């Protein structure tokens, strides 16, 4: 329960680094604002995107079946996986069929969620992540800290040292241009040698049976077009009805994510290349359960732009790893409790409910309202710490009884007025760690009112 607070406190100990992290993400949020404000119909686009997703979720079974039928017509093999384990087994069996041992992968939060890399490595299959940020954290053996900018928590000095060890770059080199060039050379070799390419999916189109993959680096395309086998892994919620709906979503995605007017590459895959093979794996892994929760189902609208992370004042100051979940930040805090309520019971509390996440969300997910609702469920199911629950029961009693309230207020004011500092400001008073308590006035407003107005 306190896990986020503990990890956040550790992150924030290095205040200069916290400020750097906060500023880096605020910079992205500012670029997003500018891009959004340049589009007069921005709010209308958000509403459209939200409605298209609502519609699609309400017909999801039909659209998935239509998608599969069309993809099959296109010569694509479609697989269905109920959970992460089945997804990993399916991917492995496709690779085995094609005798593929060297895999290049572009960014996919789904395969991250399923633990695909670890699974394949255990089967002695080499997996190279090819997005620069993903490659950095793969070499560093860390999970991503952000869904769009996986290595946003690392400084260029750390990347330089890592590349020096792993890619033999010059000792002490920290220039991003130089380091990126080194990665380019290294990854080109991997692309040329790969037996198969695995990508995530941004959008899947029911009408045409194709998938759309968006990148800035071009890594997904280098992988899929060079390797003889391409595999696209998608959650069931990635479906859109028709190609025309891409117009709405491509306008929103990159602007929300990084403030760019478009991702550099928006690739539409419908058929395998000549002589190649194309597979699509459709994954549930808890999504149908989330669909059955009326208060939480619209979290499935998420297009993984990361805007809620960039704007979240807590995420910016605690880092993605403090959430300990594949998808961190506000959206992660409403998705993960649906997967393991006990383990992630602290995340809905890692928020001030400021609501900025909901207002940047390009598909208008009511993220902060869902955080509030998860809190109710967490308390009901007994995952609140006992002391906190007791204090809330007590507060409920005091605040519904004017007499008790009056007495409690008086003693609270008395305490802050008359007790010596060491008795108030100690380790039990977390408020007082960095803040003074309010100076207690002699009389409450109610007392003042009785003296000054009641008589008249």
């Amino acid at each position, binding site marked *: 329960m306190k896990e986020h607070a503990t990890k956040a406190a550790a992150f924030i100990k290095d205040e200069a680094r916290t400020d750097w992290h906060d500023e880096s993400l605020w910079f992205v949020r500012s670029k997003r604002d500018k891009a959004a404000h340049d589009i007069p119909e921005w709010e209308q686009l958000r509403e459209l995107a939200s409605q298209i997703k609502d519609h699609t*979720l309400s017909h999801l079974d039909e659209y*998935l079946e239509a998608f599969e039928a069309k993809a099959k017509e296109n010569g694509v093999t479609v697989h269905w996986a109920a959970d992460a384990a089945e997804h990993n087994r399916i991917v492995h069996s496709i690779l085995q069929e094609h005798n593929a041992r060297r895999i290049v992968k572009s960014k996919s939060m789904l395969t991250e969620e399923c633990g695909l890399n670890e699974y394949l490595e255990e089967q002695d299959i080499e997996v190279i992540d090819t997005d*620069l940020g993903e490659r950095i954290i793969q070499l560093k053996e860390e999970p991503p800290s952000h869904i769009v900018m996986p290595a946003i928590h690392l400084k260029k000095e750390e990347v330089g040292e890592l590349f020096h060890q792993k890619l033999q770059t010059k000792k002490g080199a920290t220039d991003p241009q130089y380091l990126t060039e080194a990665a380019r050379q290294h990854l*080109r070799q991997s692309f040329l040698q790969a037996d198969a390419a695995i990508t995530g999916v941004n959008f899947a189109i029911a009408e045409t049976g194709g998938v759309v993959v968006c990148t800035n*680096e071009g890594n997904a395309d280098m992988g899929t077009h060079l390797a003889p086998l391409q595999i696209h892994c998608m959650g069931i919620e990635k479906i859109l009805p028709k190609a025309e709906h891409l117009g709405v979503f*491509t306008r929103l995605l990159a602007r929300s994510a990084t403030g*760019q007017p478009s991702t550099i*590459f928006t690739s*539409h895959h419908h*058929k395998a290349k000549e002589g190649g093979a194309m597979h699509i794996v459709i994954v549930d892994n808890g999504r149908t359960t989330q669909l059955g929760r009326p208060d939480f189902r619209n979290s499935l609208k998420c297009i993984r732009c990361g805007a809620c992370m960039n704007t979240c004042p807590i995420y910016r100051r605690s880092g993605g790893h403090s959430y300990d979940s594949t998808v961190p930040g506000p959206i992660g805090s409403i998705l993960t409790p649906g997967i393991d309520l006990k383990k992630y019971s602290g995340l809905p509390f890692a928020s001030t409910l400021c609501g900025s996440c909901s207002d940047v969300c390009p598909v208008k997910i009511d993220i902060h309202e869902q955080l509030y609702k998860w809190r109710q469920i967490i308390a009901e199911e007994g995952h609140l710490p006992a002391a906190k629950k007791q204090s809330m029961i007590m507060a409920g009693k005091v605040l519904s009884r004017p007499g008790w309230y009056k007495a409690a207020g008086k003693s609270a004011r008395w305490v802050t007025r008359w007790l010596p500092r060491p008795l108030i400001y100690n380790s039990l008073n977390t408020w007082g760690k960095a803040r003074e308590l309010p100076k207690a006035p002699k009389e409450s407003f109610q007392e003042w009112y009785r003296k000054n107005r009641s008589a008249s």
Partner: protein
Amino acid sequence: MSKAHILKAIQHNKPEPRPLPDIPGFESSSMDIVQAFGSTSAQNGTRVVNAADFADLESALRTLFPDKGKIASTLPDLTSEVNLQNSAPDALVDVDIAVIGGQVGVAENGAVWVTEADCVHRVLPFIAQHLVLVLPEDRIVRNMHEAYAQIKIDDTGFGVFIAGPSKTADIEQSLVIGAQGARSLTIILT
């Protein structure tokens, strides 16, 4: 097995039917779309030039790429130094400049639609060190809605909107041009 299970779970759990909204045109009246295409492209790091400023395509390339290098062209009016039909995709790794025709340009984001049919090899626009797209000016549309109305995404097995040179900002949010794909994008408007 899992398919039936997943579909059944969806049928059981999905909400009441919700309507599919119509997408309006969002026509902004006074936009000069060619000019807008130029300025958004410039912001993306793309170089946009007019074919009219050069004698022909070949002299354009000579001027734009003084160091030239190995050219792979899919256009009939420019000789390709690489025999694309007879090359394996990975043999294209030493192509310096790929010259390809674009089908539709988008003013709001500087993206150009390119399909498999335009590339011969899907990997060509990505694997070449530099990419040149030749686009008729009258094929520029206002926004992505119009773009999707103009194209058929499944006309060929693969199609892509390209909106600039390959880039990354994965190291400390520093923008670096030339990540895994082409290091530069030049658009020649005809």
